[in-house]
């Protein structure tokens, strides 16, 4: 069944750069100020920014939607038919995007405090960041 659903991830508006880096890491692109996102049957719904697959016009998009408070974004998309490629990129329920976003946020804030950060992928799919400072 096709429907637009929310990815369970709250993004602070001042962390949009982390979402952008996470998207790039997964081979998708955050298009700032794209004000609609595409889903089932060519429908378009409003958003503040959108995530798309570059060079794939058929893939559904993810809408980055500003919350009522204006401090956070939520993500909405339609996973029907694998969103024509988007699910492969960002994972079922957006899990890969949620993981990479958390990685980018943690790296940004550790570096801002003067830490050197190394990154390691574990066999279970977890990402381990080691932040070290003298």
């Amino acid at each position, binding site marked *: 069944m096709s429907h637009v659903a929310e990815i369970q991830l709250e993004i602070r508006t001042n962390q949009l750069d982390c979402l952008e880096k996470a998207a790039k890491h997964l081979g998708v692109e955050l298009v700032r100020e794209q004000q609609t996102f595409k889903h089932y049957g060519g429908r378009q719904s409003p958003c503040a920014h959108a995530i798309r697959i570059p060079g794939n016009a058929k893939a559904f998009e993810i809408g980055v939607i500003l919350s009522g408070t204006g401090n956070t974004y939520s993500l909405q998309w339609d996973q029907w038919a694998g969103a024509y490629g988007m699910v492969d990129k960002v994972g079922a329920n957006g899990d890969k995007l949620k*993981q990479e976003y958390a990685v980018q946020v943690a790296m940004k*804030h550790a570096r801002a405090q003067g830490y050197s950060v190394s990154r390691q992928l574990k066999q*279970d799919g977890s990402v381990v960041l080691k932040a070290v400072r003298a």
Partner: protein
Amino acid sequence: MKTITITVNPTGETTIKTGGFSGSACKDATAAIEKALGAKVSDTPTAEMNNANPIQATNRS
């Protein structure tokens, strides 16, 4: 040497451990990261907190 180990599982759930800090300095060090990640779910200081041992904090985004 101060270390912060951040583990992000495949669904984005995050665990933070610190080492090499004195007293509650480890909390200060991780506060910015935790805040940026979103609402904190649990934060469990260890008995050795005054002896530069790890605390754990878990974020579910």
